[in-house]
């Protein structure tokens, strides 16, 4: 019964898709049947080149998230713990956060060329802002008692950061990472489509579309969604396990 409830959303989705296709409500040329599409997903995996596309995209996304953590965490800690820093820089950061990442394409193209560096740099830039804000917000709004009592016990700033503040922020790091990952996926796939690359799911989707291989195109879209879905699931599990409090 529990599984039936959990899978009901999927069943409705597939039924709807099937109806749209079978009833010819949408031209089957643009929306192939679910069974044909899912079969294609399977056969895509048998193509060597497809695995390299998958790998290229996931590597870019993960690298971006890694940079986001490396850049965003220390800056977030700094910004969260210093009222002056926060007030001074809040406006500028809010402005940058409000620029759609895609509008920055040209700038990153100029600066880093058309290779992987510009794609990863753009995704890292946007996602590190997310991590930074999550952590800064967490540090600012954490109860002061823990850090204060550690300080009274004679802790130095280094000890306070590593014994208290970082732990206090850890649940937020998970939250930030989930959002950062979603955004990184969007940016990487869009840049693969429009900045251009030889390998990547984004490139595949465009290629399939141009070649009118619509079933494969949907298959690739489903896979892109699948990556995000899986990673979120892994993070949620890890969070439940390690953030036990």
């Amino acid at each position, binding site marked *: 019964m529990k599984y039936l409830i959990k899978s009901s959303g999927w069943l409705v989705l597939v039924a709807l898709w099937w109806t749209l296709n079978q009833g010819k409500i949408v031209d089957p040329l643009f929306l192939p049947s679910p069974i044909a599409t899912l079969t294609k997903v399977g056969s895509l995996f048998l193509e060597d080149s497809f695995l390299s596309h998958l790998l290229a995209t996931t590597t870019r996304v993960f690298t971006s998230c890694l940079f986001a953590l490396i850049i965003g965490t220390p800056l977030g800690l700094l910004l969260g713990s210093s009222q002056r820093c926060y007030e001074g820089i809040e406006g500028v950061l809010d402005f940058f956060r409000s620029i759609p990442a895609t509008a920055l394409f040209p700038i990153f193209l100029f600066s880093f060329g058309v290779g992987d560096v510009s794609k990863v740099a753009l995704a890292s830039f946007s996602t590190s802002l997310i991590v930074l804000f999550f952590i800064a917000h967490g540090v600012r709004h954490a109860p002061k*008692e*823990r850090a204060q009592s550690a300080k*009274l016990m004679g*802790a130095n700033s280094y000890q306070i950061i590593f*014994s208290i503040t970082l*732990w206090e922020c850890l649940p937020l790091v998970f939250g930030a990472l989930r959002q950062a990952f979603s955004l990184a996926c969007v940016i990487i796939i869009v840049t693969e489509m429009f900045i251009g690359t030889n390998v990547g799911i984004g490139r595949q989707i465009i290629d399939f579309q141009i070649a009118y291989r619509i079933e494969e195109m949907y298959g690739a879209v489903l896979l892109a969604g699948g990556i995000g879905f899986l990673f979120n699931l892994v993070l949620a599990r890890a969070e439940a396990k390690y953030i*036990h*409090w």
Partner: protein
Amino acid sequence: MNSAIEVNKLSMRIDGRELYDQLSFRVPKNHITTILGVNGSGKSTLLNILSGISNSDAGTARLCPHSQFAYIFQNYRASLLPWRSVRDNITLPLQLKGISSRGKAQKLSELLSEWPIDFSLDTFPYRLSGGQQQLIILLRSLIAEPDILLADEPFSALDYERTLLLRERLFNWLKKRSASALIVSHSIEEAVQLADTLLIFSKSPTQIISRIEAPLHSPRSVELLSTEAFHTLHTMARDSYLRAAA
């Protein structure tokens, strides 16, 4: 400075209102002073000033220089580290001082021989009751053997029976180590049972309405509460407290 704590003509303004009226008192070394006072009389603020968390506007409130002190916050829940086990919470002060694992284990077992606990050291604080959490905070404050203990309602979440026992234990512990303490309480009985001296604060602007010496015998056990001497002090304290609150 030959007192453990000295408060001299303390003045502090909060929202344009004077909190203290030239508050002055001292706590001698090896002496326990308890404070009773209505809400808003600046008891917690006083402990914050003494510990250095807050600053006064004028006057002084100081602890004896070079003394080790521990401060038990009123908000015990927020000062526990929920990601650490009970053991690692209690030994936190030792860890921050860089004491080895062996040293920590030794100190902990010494402490627990005087303060037995009825829950596991390996569990996490959020699995425990409010009273048990409060006991962890108390043990965390005592493990580094402070010379001065500042405590803000340290037993507020414990059940009555256990409170009685812990008061006695805390009194003995402080006396055995010649430590001093300033303890804020909302229970008249507790304030009398723990005190060498009991201060009753007026409403703000706060001054000391009465100062009651409590030359009761040690140990401060449950039996003490039924004695004539205790009753007399309790009545005195209650009368002044009610006068202060009126």
